[in-house]
């Protein structure tokens, strides 16, 4: 089950970084021949209910649970998990200079621990609209992914996901919260 998602995440990255070729179409509305759309899967059995509402979504499991790592690698991983957030300026996906050493530390580790995978989460503050922000969040995640690729981290260890403004770090609606919410998180 989990493996399937890993494939998708890697695919996300490959697509978003333009590493695989995909026919692009002009705005003439041609049917997209690259798209294979399966029948929708019906997910009705097994849905649990609570007070009349369907309950979905567990806490995410880490893709690296159960990996065999040396004691030294394990300690390094624990340390990196504590220092894994890049904060961005308003409306920007440029990585501020003060995060370069943070990113180098993650890249050094990922190059040596080739089985470890990361999911880079892109987030925005709440200003603007949520649909536009989820697109901006993807740009931030991609920006961090590109930086790590440039530092020699193999693409198959990296995937990205944008949450837009949906998972704020701080819940208040003010400048201070917005500053903390414009971020990318390197999640192990």
């Amino acid at each position, binding site marked *: 089950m989990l493996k399937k*998602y890993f494939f*998708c*995440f890697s*695919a*996300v990255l*490959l*697509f*978003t970084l*333009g590493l695989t070729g*995909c026919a*692009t*179409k*002009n*705005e*003439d*509305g*041609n*049917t*997209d021949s690259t*798209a294979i*759309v399966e029948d*929708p*899967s*019906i*997910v*009705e059995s097994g*849905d649990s209910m*609570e*007070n*009349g*509402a*369907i*309950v*979905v*979504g*567990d*806490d*995410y499991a880490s893709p690296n649970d159960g990996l065999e790592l040396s004691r030294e690698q394990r300690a390094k991983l624990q340390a990196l998990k504590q220092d894994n957030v890049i904060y961005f300026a308003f409306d920007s996906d440029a990585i501020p200079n003060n995060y370069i050493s943070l990113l180098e530390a993650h890249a050094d580790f990922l190059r040596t621990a080739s089985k470890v995978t990361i*999911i880079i989460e892109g987030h925005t503050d*709440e*200003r*603007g*609209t*949520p*649909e*536009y922000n*989820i*697109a*901006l969040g*993807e*740009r931030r995640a991609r920006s961090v992914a590109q930086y790590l690729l440039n530092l020699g981290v193999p693409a198959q260890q990296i995937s990205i*996901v*944008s*949450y*837009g403004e*949906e*998972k704020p770090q701080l*819940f*208040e*609606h003010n400048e201070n919260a917005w500053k903390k919410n414009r971020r990318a998180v390197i999640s192990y």
Partner: protein
Amino acid sequence: MKVWEKAFSALVLFWGFAGTGQADLNLEITGGMDIGRKIVVVPFGGQSAAREDQDLAGIIAADLTRSGVFSPVAAGGQKASTGDEVRTSDFPAGTEAVVVGRVAKGASGYVVNFELVSLTSGNPLVIQGVKADVPAGRLREYGHRISDQVYEKLTGTKGGFGTRIAYIKRSFASKHPYQLAVADYDGKNEKVLLVSSQPLMSPRWRNDGRTLAYVSFEQRKPQIYTLDIVSRSRKLITSFPGLNSNPAWSPDGSSLAMVLSKDGNPEIYVLNLAARSLKRITSNPGIDTEPSWSPDGRNLYFVSERAGAPQVFSVDLSSGAVSRVTRSPVKNLSPVVMPDNSGIVLINQNGGFRVSRQDFSGSLYSLTGTSLDESPTVSPGGNMIIYNTVKGGRSVLALVSANGRYREVLRNSGGEYYFPSWSGYAGK
């Protein structure tokens, strides 16, 4: 109405002199600029012991107020409960019509009578009278139905007060903070349909009034699902690499416009659900997002960065021709086409992010004075807009009449509210 029209002719004149074809002017209508048509809704007879949420006169007056068309006047101790008892001299000068009625216990609930009395010709004239058996527990719903009849009789257009909204509620104190809920359009009778520990986004009603499309992150990535709210069954619709977001039903309910980034960056696609065919609509290196259908289903309005800051464009789905819709230099987002195709409602960055209107005749104007407005959705009759905004430190659901005269916060407790979506007339 007069002052409003005057303001508009002044605006048109101004642009005539300015000689620009496309207006960049932002005009905020502050509410109370003019009063609406005067109407009195007399408290219904037989209701003295009724619960507050069954106060039919209160429900009807609130509905009519929200349209921005009427300004209900307090009944001032009026006791009339039938048309015969209405005397023109008992009501304030300028009162156009009076709604009277009474509630009695019936075999399986209530018997409700109401009459709409016109005062415009001097002598009171009953222009509508309806008697109905109303099952217990459905008095509130019937109140909205009376509002619809009164509104349609007096304006010639549908009111839409019996419709519903869907929205996402966030309650971070809860184990499942993200909740998909539906309620009556006025925020009452909330029903939570689906809860998740991970984000839910963008519920949108299909024209059948029973299917919602929405986005869920339950598998650690955004995917588009549909939910049948009657059978409570759901279907996974798309799960492409990258974004699967912003589903928007075509007016005929056959297709979903959506945003996918599988080909490198966010682009707009249309998925025909029966044929399972996917058509790519946009193609350019910037973000293309927020698709919204024209009422005839022939055009998609959307937001694009192709000209720099995000602006609204439209694309003709048969020819592929793209035209730019907004031209103000700030960000313009979240277009929704008015049901009569007279213009779009959108979020315009003017000081803050505000619900605004751009008429196709040219003018752009703000409808609110708040700064964090999002996700405007328009009633099927085009007379009201619901959106979310921040008030008192929380994100709330708010309503503004489409003419900007009236604003109200609908839901502000029990969590924070996002992504309102208005059903069509089949919504109830």
